[in-house]
């Protein structure tokens, strides 16, 4: 093709110009192809970075507006919000992993206490539910800020070093990161309004089961109710709504097991779980194990407690993607709560005897869901 192209057009002067330009481009691509590719990638990252900055600013703006509207602070909260956005947590050293769970739990407790304290100062007029929602708003805004800063770091590093591989690794994961960032913006918006999110599917199932029964507080931000279910005594627990919190379900389950001296026939945990592409949102699946996300402290505690008394743990999961998990709850996920309840009933009928005590734990953020 190249010799043919070079012989085109005879001895016309313009043909010569055309051929020279063609060769110049050809040689340029041979020697500078990688660099041109890198510049194209940098441009792509630059575009996404501008979108991320816009999302970060939007999250910050929403947080400030909501604090002003709900908290009615006497002074402008902008400076405090900006300080909050730069918040960092230094994770415990894991060279000797023994006891790290308790160190991590302590760190998370301190963080939670600090967040709640900061929010009290930022929004003095807000009630507890609103403070919990504001905490959620700020945490999502912090996440957006972190994503923006990390991508900016690699973008600037790539530009500075002109390293194709630094830019390439950011450019390759950008579609997934952008998807996540967009979901976080939805989360900020849902939290400012106090709307139930997809992540609250487990809490919704528990709320439906315990509604109309007397509840008691059994752990930090966790409520439980004793509910007769299919001839069994079901101890149903969830995080205390309608404020945005996940509570400490690990402590709640351990407490109920302790109160019943280990005489629990089974533990059923319901949680929202990441669906794979191609699966439908709101599909319900069953299995075994402690269905709970987060940093792992609660899962560890639950596994320790059930192991002590050899209690079987069953999991019922409601599938959804990251976007649905942190956006206002989809109808399919809301409807899946009833399907999950049917599964739980069938599960305890098949796996326990009449009169047995069972624990049903609805896991997830209970924002917008009462009990």
């Amino acid at each position: 093709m190249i010799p043919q192209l070079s012989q085109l057009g005879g001895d016309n002067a313009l043909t010569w110009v055309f051929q020279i330009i063609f060769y110049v481009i050809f040689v340029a691509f041979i020697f500078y192809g990688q660099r041109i590719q890198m510049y194209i990638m940098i441009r792509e990252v630059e575009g996404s970075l501008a979108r991320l900055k816009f999302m970060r600013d939007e999250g910050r703006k929403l947080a400030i507006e909501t604090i002003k509207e709900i908290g009615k602070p006497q002074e402008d909260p902008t400076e405090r919000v900006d300080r909050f956005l730069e918040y960092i947590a230094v994770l415990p050293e894991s060279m000797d992993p023994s006891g790290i769970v308790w160190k991590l739990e302590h760190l998370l407790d301190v963080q939670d206490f600090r967040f709640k304290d900061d929010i009290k100062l930022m929004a003095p007029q807000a009630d507890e539910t609103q403070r919990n929602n504001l905490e959620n708003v700020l945490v999502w805004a912090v996440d957006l800020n972190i994503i923006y800063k990390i991508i900016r770091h690699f973008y600037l590093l790539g530009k500075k070093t002109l390293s194709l591989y630094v830019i390439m690794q950011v450019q390759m994961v950008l579609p997934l990161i952008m998807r996540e960032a967009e979901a976080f913006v939805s989360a900020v918006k849902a939290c400012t309004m106090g709307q139930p999110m997809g992540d609250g599917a487990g809490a919704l199932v528990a709320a439906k089961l315990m509604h109309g029964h007397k509840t008691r507080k059994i752990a930090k931000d966790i409520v439980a109710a004793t509910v007769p279910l299919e001839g069994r005594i079901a101890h149903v627990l969830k995080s205390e709504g309608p404020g945005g919190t996940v509570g400490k379900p690990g402590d709640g389950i351990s407490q109920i097991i302790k109160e019943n001296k280990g005489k629990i026939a089974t533990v059923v945990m319901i949680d929202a779980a990441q669906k794979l592409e191609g699966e439908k949102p709101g599909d319900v699946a069953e299995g075994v194990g402690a269905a709970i996300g987060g940093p792992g402290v609660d899962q560890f505690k639950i596994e320790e407690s059930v192991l002590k008394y050899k209690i079987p743990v069953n999991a019922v999961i409601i599938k959804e993607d990251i976007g649905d998990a942190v956006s206002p709850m989809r109808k399919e996920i809301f409807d899946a709560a009833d399907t999950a309840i049917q599964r739980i009933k069938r599960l305890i009928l098949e796996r326990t005897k009449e009169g047995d005590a069972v624990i049903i734990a609805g896991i997830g953020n209970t924002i917008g869901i009462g009990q």
Partner: protein
Amino acid sequence: MTEKAEPPARNISSFLLVIILIILVLSLGALYLAVDAVIRENDVVNAGYFMLIGFIGLSLLAYMLLQAKRKPLRVPFEMPQVITTILCQKCGFKNVRDFQRGDYIFKETEPCPKCNEKMMITSIYREVKEKEK
């Protein structure tokens, strides 16, 4: 209920403009040579090649411009419509309205207009049309 945030304006980069300009000049040059080859030398084969190069260049140009236009810095910041359903437990009267701040599932709300019994929020959700996904 639906809010939209204004995205930042998008500028076409100077790098892209230079590339577009080069392709435009080359494509027009190729088309000129094609016409020239037919008129002056009656060389249809070479004219065909130049015509092909010219049109490929122009198509590439159109594609690049379309792509630059198609990728504005738009962020889907629309607030989805969230529906609250309020139900009277006694007579079954149902009220469906847009979500309002302060709504939550199992919240007791205003009395039922039919039987005057307190109504309760039984569901809050958003409906997603499949084409959105």
